[in-house]
């Protein structure tokens, strides 16, 4: 466990020194700060627009950070040959991979926590109220996004064990977009009686096999509090377990491939 934690802490240090990530984070924070000024887009629904925009920024910026942070992680170590100095020590390849992944997750946690804190502050200022419950409710969004981003980072780490960073970037983004958009598409295919059974079947298989990022887009009931949600806790638990299981799958695949790879 110690080598894993050592690699993870080194990875966090590297991540927070990367200027490109800090710039993206800064842009995200700036967007959240200006969000209350977007009342122009609303009609009797400033709070809706504010919540929607801020949650959207956190999700979007976190996704960019997660991808950029992870696609270069393993290839850079190989390219700079720093991996030799690590693997020459009593460190297993799987420990290296898991340590790198945990470092990425911790870095994401730090950055998303910062954006969430700014969001809570701006929400307080815009609402001019001290309704802690409402802010806590809003925080459910970033919490679920965090699990989503951990899953995205796992996808990128898995791909980074066998493809080049540029290809990995497009692959990861592609999987993310399909994972986000496929659920609504699958739903509409399922609801449409005119859809051929074969197409429905294919959609079902793809929906079951690919990581389902749309599960974590829980913002709609948070933005529109009038929506009644049943068994919210059970759903959150379900998608967290789903995320952990899928992350495990991706890391195992990554370990299996990385173990066989010549470095």
């Amino acid at each position: 466990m110690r080598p894993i934690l050592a690699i993870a802490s080194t990875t966090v240090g590297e991540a927070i020194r990367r200027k490109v990530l800090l710039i993206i984070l800064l842009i995200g924070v700036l967007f959240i700060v200006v969000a209350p000024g977007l009342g122009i887009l609303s009609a009797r629904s400033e709070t809706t627009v504010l919540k929607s925009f801020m949650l959207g920024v956190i999700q979007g910026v976190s996704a960019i950070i997660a991808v950029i942070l992870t696609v270069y992680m393993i290839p850079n170590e190989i390219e700079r040959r720093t991996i030799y100095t690590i693997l020459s020590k009593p460190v297993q390849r799987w420990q290296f991979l898991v340590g790198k992944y945990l470092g990425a997750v911790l870095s994401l946690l730090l950055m998303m926590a910062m954006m969430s804190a700014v969001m809570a502050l701006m929400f307080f200022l815009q609402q001019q109220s001290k309704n802690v419950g409402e802010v806590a409710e809003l925080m459910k969004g970033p919490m679920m996004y965090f699990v989503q981003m951990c899953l995205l980072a796992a996808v990128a780490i898995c791909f980074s064990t066998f493809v080049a960073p540029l290809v990995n970037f497009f692959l990861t983004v592609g999987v993310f977009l399909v994972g986000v958009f496929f659920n609504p598409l699958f739903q509409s295919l399922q609801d449409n009686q005119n859809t051929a059974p074969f197409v429905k079947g294919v959609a079902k298989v793809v929906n079951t096999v690919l990581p389902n990022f749309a599960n974590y887009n829980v913002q709609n009931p948070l933005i529109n509090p009038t929506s009644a949600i049943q068994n919210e806790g059970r759903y959150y638990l379900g998608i967290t377990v789903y995320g952990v299981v899928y992350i495990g799958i991706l890391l195992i695949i990554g370990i299996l491939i990385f173990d066989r790879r010549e470095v």
Partner: protein
Amino acid sequence: MKHRSSPVLLTVLAMAFLCQGLLQRLVIFDQWSRDYNPGKGKMYTNAMSPDQILAVLAGFREITAGILWVKADTFFDQGNYDAILPLIRLVTLLDPNEIDVYATGMWHIGYNFTDEEQRSDRRYIPSALALGKEGTRQNPDTYELFFEEGWLWYHKIDDDYDNAVKWFKEAQTKKDMLTARKNLLGMAYQRDGKINESIDTYYRLFDDSVKLYAQENAFGNHQNRDTLESNLDNMLVRKVQRGFQAELDNRPLNSYDCYPPFDVGFSVKASVVEPNVLRFEGTWNVLPVGTRIRVVLRDLNYPKAKPAEMEWDSSNDVNLDPPRNATFMQEQLFVKNRRFNKKVDMSKDPTMYPFTSDNYVLEFYYNPRSAPPHIQDKFSWNGEGMTDKNFLNQTVRPGQRVIFASLPITRDMIKRYGQWVDKTPVVKTSNYQESAPDAGRADDDAILKIPSLRSGMSGSK
């Protein structure tokens, strides 16, 4: 160095894969579909679907604007006007050249936010005007939004006609202005009391129509020429008959229709018959149908309020959020048989009539410029032929003789709180006579008799 894959690891992998599939299919998906799917339920109506967002991100602004506009149209058919507003704003932001969206958006905002009795929410009118102004700035080369802006002043606001004139004039400078629509400038001038300008406009348009008909012997051109000729004839006759020309020449008015000024004998009583429900009863001695007296109930300190109206053109920025804590009710009281009696129920629309302030004012207003021609024939354009012992006012609309009365009323009275729980609150003008069946009405000699096809009467006092 190559490793053989551990069978345990592969088994764990297979089990985990199965586990995630079962979780997704059996536990998560149904609840996601029910509670979190953005493509279902109310949330979808107020937002773009993910594929539309993707289209925007990909740069297809116009396509997305078009999709949203189709969706807004669906909401309109369903009567779901609240959902349309954000969509209109988004579409105009995405594609500022969507003239139809600006025009229809102004119409929605200005006309379609109504209460249960189809009274439109006047608090939205500054937003409708601001949207139109933004549309004209974005599309300065086409007449349409200039015309729509003028139409909102002319038809919806139905007051301050100098603004309608300003926008219609601007619209006429655009090359694509439809010929028939140009005639409205003459009408707007007339309602603005600028009779010579109205006649000049009709002359100019008539000359143009003659040329156009000579160029193209089409039925529409023929019809337009005849309409303009008729309008011009009417205006010339009215200018003389109503004593307008005599007034310009400083000649006495006593041989014209507007002399002597007729006392309309206005009186009114407003009773709060139920919480938030008012009944207006009163007198108006004009027998021919066609009189509409404006009544406004508003917060005493309504932002930028003016007598019986507000500063409609108060903003250049589109703010689709009217002052939600303030009340501004405007209604027309129709006169029949020299009386009016109308119940105004504001109890079913608390968002439109929030009544959060303590003090309110009831304003009653009549302006002959908005009157139909058969009544204007007596009162003339500026009210020269109209008077009232108590409520003639020449200051609230400078240069015009209008009827204006205001009565204070409190929130407790409107909502029947405190002492008003068992007692009907009543506010009335001092001349209102409670007991007489024809309260406030003068004897028959004082009744205005205007030639009218409906009444069959002839002659005027």
